């Protein structure tokens, strides 16, 4: 089995297995989650942020990525490049654009490796608040192959600016909107996922806001809309968040999505069936700015999420006892364990993790 040549198959290799694993995971998902021809690195070039969103779950404890960590990531890419078909680099944070130099450095190196290995496809995305995503910065990222962005809006300006504020307290909507308009007016093949949060306190204003977004960006196929309920992700302000009531949550979201669709917007990923979280993939690692390795980008400080470290020479040290539970869904086929392996995460001999988090990233 050439694809898995780096995986040791037991016995002589003539292993028989019945139709997939016990649950409902497709062959395609199973292969993609286990092949060593794919390497997904989620990089936190800084864990500092210029925003202080009221629902944020991060504690900004580590700032800009240490130079030795950057060297380690580049060395890992070099080590692995030859056997890879798909090098997928996701930029996360903190706010990744506070460390543009790190992004430039790593992506330039990755592009160099891709140019030397014709089989290697390099792709990259970024979750950013877009405050610093000027047209100039966007074009630089585009040149560096960062082509997919997730950007969040919390409703029209007066409501967004109550939730997504700068560290100094000022609003951010106007600048983000201007940056989005600037990006829309550029040419190129990229994808912007507009994440729109719906909560009890912006509910009334949402139909008009969704219409405005759809009219402004909906005609451009490079923009897609992810309309979601505001959620609790483990931040200190969770109890005070105006989360949509369960009695009308689904109806509200369905109505707004339909409205966006009717106005010509492209919706992202609805319904998301058979979703397998990156944290369940055996070929996906989060590299923190201090060199720690995690599986999940939400519960960053949870002890079960500290699976190892990267070294300056590009080698990684992973604790298999901590890794295995993240991949348990591949065995069970359980939809919940695949969609969010952090839910009900239990390691042998460890206390159950009770944190309940939604499926998607922030």
């Amino acid at each position, binding site marked *: 089995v050439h694809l898995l040549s780096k*995986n040791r198959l037991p016995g002589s290799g003539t292993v028989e*297995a019945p139709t997939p*694993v016990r649950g409902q995971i497709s*062959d*395609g998902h199973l*292969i993609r989650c286990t092949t060593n021809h794919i390497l997904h690195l989620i990089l936190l070039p800084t864990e500092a942020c210029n925003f202080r969103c009221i629902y944020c779950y991060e504690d900004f404890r580590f700032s800009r990525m240490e130079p030795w960590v950057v060297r380690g990531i580049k060395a890992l890419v070099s*080590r692995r490049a030859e056997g890879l*078909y798909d090098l997928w680099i996701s930029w996360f944070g903190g706010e990744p654009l506070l460390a543009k130099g790190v992004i430039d450095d790593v992506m330039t190196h990755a592009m160099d490796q891709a140019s030397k290995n014709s089989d290697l496809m390099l792709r990259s995305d970024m979750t950013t608040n877009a405050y610093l995503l000027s047209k100039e910065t966007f074009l630089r990222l585009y040149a560096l192959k960062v082509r997919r962005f997730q950007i969040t809006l919390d409703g029209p300006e007066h409501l967004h600016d109550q939730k997504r504020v700068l560290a100094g307290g000022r609003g951010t909507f106007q600048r983000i909107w201007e940056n989005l308009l600037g990006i829309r007016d550029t040419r190129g093949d990229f994808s912007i996922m507009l994440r729109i949060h719906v909560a009890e306190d912006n509910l009334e204003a949402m139909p008009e806001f969704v219409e405005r977004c759809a009219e402004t960006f909906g005609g451009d196929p490079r923009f897609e809309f992810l309309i979601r309920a505001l959620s609790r992700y483990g931040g200190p302000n969770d109890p005070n968040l105006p989360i949509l009531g369960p009695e009308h949550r689904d109806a509200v979201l369905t109505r707004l999505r339909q409205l966006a669709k009717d106005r010509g917007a492209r919706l992202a*990923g609805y319904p998301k069936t058979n979703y397998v979280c990156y944290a369940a993939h055996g070929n996906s690692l989060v590299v923190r700015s201090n060199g720690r390795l995690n599986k999940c980008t939400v519960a960053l400080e949870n002890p079960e999420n500290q699976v190892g470290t990267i070294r300056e020479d590009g080698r990684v040290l992973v604790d298999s006892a901590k890794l295995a539970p993240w991949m*348990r869904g591949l065995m069970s086929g359980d939809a919940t364990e695949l969609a969010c392996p952090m839910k009900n995460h239990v390691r042998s001999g460890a206390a159950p993790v009770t944190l309940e988090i939604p499926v998607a990233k922030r």
Partner: protein
Amino acid sequence: MPSKRKKPKKKDALSNDDQLWCTEDVNIDDEGNLRIYNTYLCAAVAAAVARARAAGNNLKIVCETGGGTDREQNPQCTC
């Protein structure tokens, strides 16, 4: 570079659901490669690969976003 990890003892992963996973089931070697030691998962992946190959999927095409954007090129893509 091959892993220097010691070969774990074999076990029957199907025989005991309570011990579906143990610390020896999977690991990531120092090159970042996934190593699967769980007999059942190994077999399941191997079977998935065999089925995909039999269906004409060269397994080299991976999806751009996991969203099936290569489906036209790759009709077997199941994502």
